């Protein structure tokens, strides 16, 4: 089992540019969550995708958007990059309880993508 994988590992972008980060969930998982971890801080929840829709969102601006594909993989897009967007972006996958219940089971994290905005 490959676990949660993320690409790329590192990325350097310029202010104003756009970036796309990718995540493949652990086998058997159908739910993907994205987190931003600034240097020296704990991860902050960006949003979660389930059944190809954004199910829940944290306190992040609309510049942050995402997508989930039929194979459950996911992308995180950030537009109009700011210096403050520099962070480690973590993807976590989980399995939502049967019947489309709101709760997800334990989340498994990928190694992250380190984004640097200059």
């Amino acid at each position, binding site marked *: 089992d490959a*676990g*949660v994988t993320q690409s790329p590992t590192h990325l350097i972008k310029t202010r104003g540019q756009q970036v796309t980060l990718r995540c493949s969930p652990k086998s058997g998982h159908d739910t993907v*969550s994205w*987190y931003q971890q600034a240097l*020296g*801080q*704990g*991860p*902050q*929840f960006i949003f*979660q995708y389930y059944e190809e829709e954004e*199910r*829940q969102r944290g306190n992040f601006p609309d510049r942050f958007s995402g997508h989930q594909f039929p194979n459950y993989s996911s992308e995180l897009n950030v537009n109009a990059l700011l210096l403050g967007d520099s962070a480690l972006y*973590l993807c*976590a996958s*989980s399995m939502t309880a049967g019947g489309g219940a*709101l*709760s*997800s*089971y*334990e*989340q*498994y*994290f*990928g*190694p*992250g993508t380190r984004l640097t905005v200059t």
Partner: protein
Amino acid sequence: AQSVTQLDSHVSVSEGTPVLLRCNYSSSYSPSLFWYVQHPNKGLQLLLKYTSAATLVKGINGFEAEFKKSETSFHLTKPSAHMSDAAEYFCVVTPRLNNNDMRFGAGTRLTVKP
């Protein structure tokens, strides 16, 4: 609203001595609580979790934590530190009925001296 406060940003212990990482939580709902560990350049790994069963939770690598509702605490302990325990540790809270809304603490960096 829910949040966690990790009371120490940095803890340093000698190898073979006990580890105590402190976490207090605040939650409007019955909480689920987790401890995750993050090694450099690696993803977050779940150490243990409390959902609603036994208040003393045993995790991997000899770690355990006790849920104390009266003190709103969920401290992480280990009887004897190993060099490989050096890492960043995060306490996490989520409402029990909505495990999607995970709130992380700021983290505690554990240093283990030989």
